[in-house]
Structure formats: C-alpha cells, structure tokens
C-alpha cells in the first residue's frame, strides 16, 4: 500500500519535556492505522501533530519532518487552515456546536466559502449518509445537535469532518466516551470509510485496534516500540514490551 503520511525522526517537546522521541513511520493511504499504548505514551500527541493542533499549545517545539502527500506540513508555505481541511479530526468527547444538525455539518463548507443553499443541502446529505446518520436525522435537520444521543453526536462530528472533503481522518479515542453499541457503529463506519479516506485512530482499546486496523503502532514513553501489520503485531510481536502490553501485563 502506498504511504500517504511519512514521519521522519520526529522529536516533540512541551517546554523541556520530550513527549515524542525520534518517531519515524509511514501511514498507508486508504487504510486504518491504530495507535495504541498506555496513557501519556505520546500517541495522542503524535496524532495532533498530523493536523498541527499542537500548534495551539504554547511551548511546543518540533524537530524532524512530517510529510502529508509529499509536502512537509511544518514548512513555511503550508497554511494550517488548508492542512486541517485536508486532515480532519474527530475528538474523544462528541463536540457538536450548539447549533442545528444541519448547521453543524454545513459549518465547515461555509468556512471554506460554500454559499449556495442547494450545494450545502447536497453536502449535508451526502456527509450524513457517509456517516451513517442520515436515516436517523433526515426528518429533523433543524433540531439542535445537542438533542441527539452521544453516539449520534459522534457520528454527526464525523459527518461534520467529512463535509470539508478531507483525505485523512484522525480519530482521537473517538469511541471511548460511547456505549458498546455506539462504539460498534463507529467501528463499522470506519471500515466503510477506509475505502475513501486514510484513517488514523488512537485507541485505549487494544481489541478495537485488533478488530478494525490494518496497521498498529505501539507507543511507550514517547517512543515507537513497534509498528507492523495489525495481525502480526498481535499474534507475533517482535518486542518483549509489546508482548507484555498486549497480553495485559501492564498498562
């Protein structure tokens, strides 16, 4: 599989604390890559470097290179707004805006200059369909996004991210606040979306990584201990620490 994102010798510091140490990897296009590891291991930090959300944390410093589609995203000529349009993100807590369902999905396209009512209607419908939410909300698009359930809200957030036509979808523990059935729906959705999008997910749940991803990366203390095809990582890990973690000996 072709790599869409290339990370080369990445070091990241929060002030004097080094959160990522010499991280290198390739993330394949149109597939699901899962980041696993104990809390504070740097997996979410790495995810947030991919759409430069870490820029907002004062005192963050980065060395090394991250290329998305062959372009170094930390170089001077990259506009972070354009990058984030291409690299969308779904967060741990469902975070819809206190607006209507329609306005939530239309928020991104409107930011990027889509004005026509008909065009927006089409984007809203296709995004909600892609997020497997259309049938549940099509009759009350004007209702507040806060009135639907947590699982629906999370799918709405996915629809909102898809509405700006990203190539990459980052999911930062997107199911950890949801019940098992909603989690399952999101996992199924991820399976469908991988045919069109490159998905990178951070998860606390090793079973989730094993169930849905093609490639799994195991982090420990800011370092990548091991990364390989998911099947291999879980059945035949090459590092002792990986084996200890996936067999539940720590973490």
């Amino acid at each position, binding site marked *: 599989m072709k790599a869409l994102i290339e990370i080369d010798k990445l070091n990241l510091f929060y002030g004097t604390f080094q959160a990522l140490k010499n991280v290198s990897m390739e993330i394949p296009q149109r597939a699901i890559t899962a980041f696993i590891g104990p809390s504070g291991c740097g997996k979410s930090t790495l995810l947030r470097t991919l*759409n430069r*959300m870490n820029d*907002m944390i*004062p005192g963050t410093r980065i060395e090394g290179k991250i290329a998305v589609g062959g372009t170094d995203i930390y170089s001077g000529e990259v506009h972070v*707004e*354009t*990058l*984030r*349009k291409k690299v*969308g*993100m779904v*967060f741990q*807590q469902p*975070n*819809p*805006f*206190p*607006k*209507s369902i329609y306005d939530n999905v239309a*928020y*991104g396209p409107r*930011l*990027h200059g889509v004005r026509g009512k008909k065009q927006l209607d089409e984007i809203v419908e296709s995004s909600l369909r892609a997020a497997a939410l259309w049938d549940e909300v099509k009759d009350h698009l004007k*209702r*507040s996004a*806060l*009135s639907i359930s947590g699982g629906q809200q999370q799918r709405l*957030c996915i629809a*909102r*991210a898809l509405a*700006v036509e990203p190539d990459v979808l980052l999911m930062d523990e997107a199911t950890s606040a949801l019940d098992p059935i909603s989690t399952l729906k999101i996992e199924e959705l991820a399976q469908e979306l991988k045919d069109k999008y490159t998905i990178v997910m951070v998860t606390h749940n090793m079973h989730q990584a094993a169930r849905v991803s093609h490639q799994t990366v195991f982090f420990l203390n800011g370092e990548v201990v091991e990364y390989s095809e998911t099947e291999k990582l879980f059945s035949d890990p090459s590092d002792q620490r990986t084996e200890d973690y996936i067999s539940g000996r720590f973490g």
Partner: protein
Amino acid sequence: MNESTRSEAPYSFGKRNSSSALYDRIFTGLVWGIGILVILFIVGLLFMLLKNGLPKLTWDFLYSIPSEIEEGGGIGPALFNSFYLLAISLIISIPIGLAAGIYLAEFAPNNKLIDFVRICVEGLSSVPSIIFGLFGIALFVEMFQIGLTILGGAISLAFLNLPMLTRITEESIRAVPVEMKNASFALGSTHLQTIRKVLVPVALNGLVTGICLTAGRAFGESAVIILTAGVTTSGVMWDFNLFSPGETLAVHLWYVQSEAIVPDAQEIAQKATSVLIFIVLLINIVFRVPLWLNSRKTKS
C-alpha cells in the same frame, strides 16, 4: 435462597431517622424561607416605588419641559438625555469592551504584564463611580475646556462601564468549552472565524448579560453625570447637540428631590422614579429578546 432465610423480617425502607435527615429538612426550609423573603422584599420594594408614581403618570409628563417655579413640569429633556447619553456611551463602550475582553481571553500572552492588566481591570470595575466623574472633570472641563456636556458625560460613562464589560466579556468567552474551539479549528477555520461563529454565539448569553448590566448602570448613574454633564438641560426637546448640558433622568430625580423649589417636587420625583424603574426593566427585557430567539434556534 431457601425458605428459612426469607422468613426473616422484611426490609424496611422507611424514613432515615438520623440527624442528617433533620439537617436536610431544616436547610431546605431555610433556603425556601429566605428565597421567599427576598422575592417578597423585591416585589414590595417595586410596589412601594411604583404605587405613588405610576397612577399619576401621563404622556404629557414624559415629554414636556420641566418647570422651575410653577407646578406641572415634565421630564422631557432629562428623559431624552438619558437615552441619548446611554446610546452614545454604549456605542463607545460596547466595541471597545468586547474587543478588550476578547483580546484578554483569546490573544493575550500568558505573562506578568497581562496578569497586572487583569488586576487593574478588576480593580477599576469596582471603583466608585464618582472617581470616574472626577476623571471626566479633569479631562473635559479642565483639559479640553468644553464644560459640562453630553459628550463628556457619555465618554465618562463609557469609561465607567468599560472595565465591567471587559471582564464579563473575557469570562464569558473563556467559559466556552475548549472542545468547541478545537472542533472549529480542526475544520480549518481561522481564529477570526472561530471567534465570530463559535465563541461569540456560544458566549452570547454572558455577553448580553454584561451589556444589560452596563446599560442599566449607565441609565441609572448619577454621580458621573452630575460632574461631567451637569444638572441642567438645554431646556428644549430633541436637542442632539453633543455640547449641550446633559442632565439625565436619574440626575433630575436627585435634583428635584433635594434642590428644586417647585411645589410638586415630591410628585415629580415619584413619577420620575417609576419611569426610571420601568425603563431599566424594559432595557433588560429588550436585550434578552435576541437571546430568546437564539435559544429557540439552538435548542428544541
């Protein structure tokens, strides 16, 4: 489970008879009692203030010229000045106050200087209004030599309200959950787009409360006006001249109550009081309409 264990006494789920249950009842009663007392007090106060003035109120009173010697003067120019001053001071204080609050919440670096500025804003918002009046005198009467004017009064009022407005704006913007900000940024919005489309709409409730407080305070303020806009009007209605003396309704109230020699001073004061209270309540209601519309759009 067999028969022998079940034959024991049934569980009792009756009232808990401990001291904590008693305290809970006492506390509940106390909070209810005080709540009702406060409401009665406010309603009683409103009633007492309005009962003497409201029945005697006529339209004529609202727009006729006050009289210095004879009975039957109105509050026209003072009422007009109240609104005129309020409008000018809000035109000045709202943009500056909101901008300063948004700056402090969103752009200000995290350092000692900004902390110091924040303490100053906090302190200024509790400085007695007479100090701002003295500042107004120093600036407009002594430095610019323009005397007691509507313009000087309005600007001094705006200064009086700026710290409070800035603080409330900063707090409301900060109270917007960071998740929402992140959601907006992650969709590729610029900082301005996030502020305009997420932070301000979500914080609108707090912002309107701030503007309401400011407007109510500006409308009822007297010390600043006495010192910077004076205790006289130009004596004609609809005087839009910014350099006219600008006695407002609150000041007029103080004036008729303490200085005036008209025989019906008492009655004028009562009627003016009811007008003042009525308008302050009205301001609060009018400013809430957009909130109400907004919440109808987002909830339901």
